[in-house]
């Protein structure tokens, strides 16, 4: 059995666990814990502390694993471990929380330093009324035009599929250009 992996990263409460849950064929193996910090508690009740783990069986010989990283900075020691051997990565950003954009940028740069693999940025919660426009997010996140910034709703399987496909197209394109 051959296995490959992709990593889903991003700031706290960006929607990483939901993203994996939308496409995983198994119940996501989650290491969520009740949040103790009162500031973070206002945003959600539980958070990932080690990793999320989802699986998509491609065929009898090949399995794709999806790893979600913990979003809070104090668990960033896990990031490098999770990034080892990844095919590519997805940076999730909550489009409704501009206060997290700077951190998302910082996480993106950290992962790029860990491994020069292809990546895409998913602008999550684009279905919400107060979501930022994609073009504005591109400026705020300081993303070059060649970086794919994709609208996404982590609970909507169709948009999650589209993000995964765009990442795979990028991987294929880099392989064809001899970069990978």
């Amino acid at each position, binding site marked *: 059995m*051959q296995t490959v992996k992709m990593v889903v990263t991003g700031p706290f409460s960006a929607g990483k666990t939901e993203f994996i849950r939308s496409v995983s064929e198994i119940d996501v193996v989650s290491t969520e814990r009740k949040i103790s910090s009162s500031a973070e508690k206002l945003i959600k009740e539980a958070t990932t502390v080690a990793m999320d783990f989802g699986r998509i069986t491609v065929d009898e010989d090949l399995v794709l694993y999806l790893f979600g990283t913990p979003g809070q900075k104090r668990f960033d020691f896990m990031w490098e471990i999770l990034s080892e051997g990844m095919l590519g990565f997805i940076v999730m950003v909550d489009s409704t929380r501009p206060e997290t954009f700077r951190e998302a940028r910082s996480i993106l740069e950290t992962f790029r330093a860990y491994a020069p693999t292809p990546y895409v940025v998913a602008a999550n919660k684009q279905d919400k009324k107060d979501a930022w426009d994609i073009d504005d997010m591109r400026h705020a996140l300081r993303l070059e035009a060649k970086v794919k910034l994709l609208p996404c709703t982590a609970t909507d399987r169709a948009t999650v599929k589209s993000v995964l496909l765009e990442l795979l197209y990028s991987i294929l394109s880099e392989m064809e250009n001899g970069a990978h």
Partner: protein
Amino acid sequence: MALRGNLRDFTITQLLNLINLARKTGTLVVESPSETARVAFREGKLAFAQIGQEDGSLAGILHKANRLTAGQFRSIQQRSRQVSDKELGLLLINAGYVSQEEILANLQQHFTDVVHNLFTWVEGFFHFDNELLPPDDRINVRLDLENLIIEGSRQLREWEQLQDEIPSLDMALKFTDRPGANLRNVNLGVEEWRVVSYINPRNSIRQIASATKMNDLEIRRIVYGLLQAGLVEIIRPEGAPAPPPVRVFPTEDKEEQKSLVNRLINRIRSL
């Protein structure tokens, strides 16, 4: 009980606060992994400060502040063994090169800069030596610590934020390929230009700081500004040891790898 410990447990701000409140006289010696600082106090006021082997003599400080020409500085250095800082100060005042106020202002600025630099030290050991008095051959000042402590606390917050933004100085910088990002259209200060002139994928931020004689806070502040302006991005330095190779694909064959990605694409499409 001896005042000694680790900066992880007791910060520079807390130390200065204690020295101020206890009106201590003596020298605080702080040893970081790379250099040692000596800061002397008299009755809780800053008297003298020096980091590492830097030239903390009056001539050196006035030269750094452009109050002495290179020629004057060289000539003084040749005679420095015979002349103490106090004597040199009197000579310079009598010769009309500088006033007493200018000497004091430059010394105060220099000592303040040393203490500001110390605020960025988060690792190291310290001890306070009651017996080690401010050096007699140097001109001492009497600076209240309150303003330094307030400024230090503010700097610490900025430092923490900058550390979050730029966690490692071992990374390099490269100019962004973003169209429209043209340095000529940006108003950069002298210090920023100095940093910009060293930006190259082969130079780590730490090397740039060393070449431009900036401390960690100063270089982080400038790099942060350039990052925010979208002019540069952080990359792994060229020639730096790459992380140990980890297999991404279960096969080495390029065609098999492409086939594998295509199988993944087909599977995701079918979900």
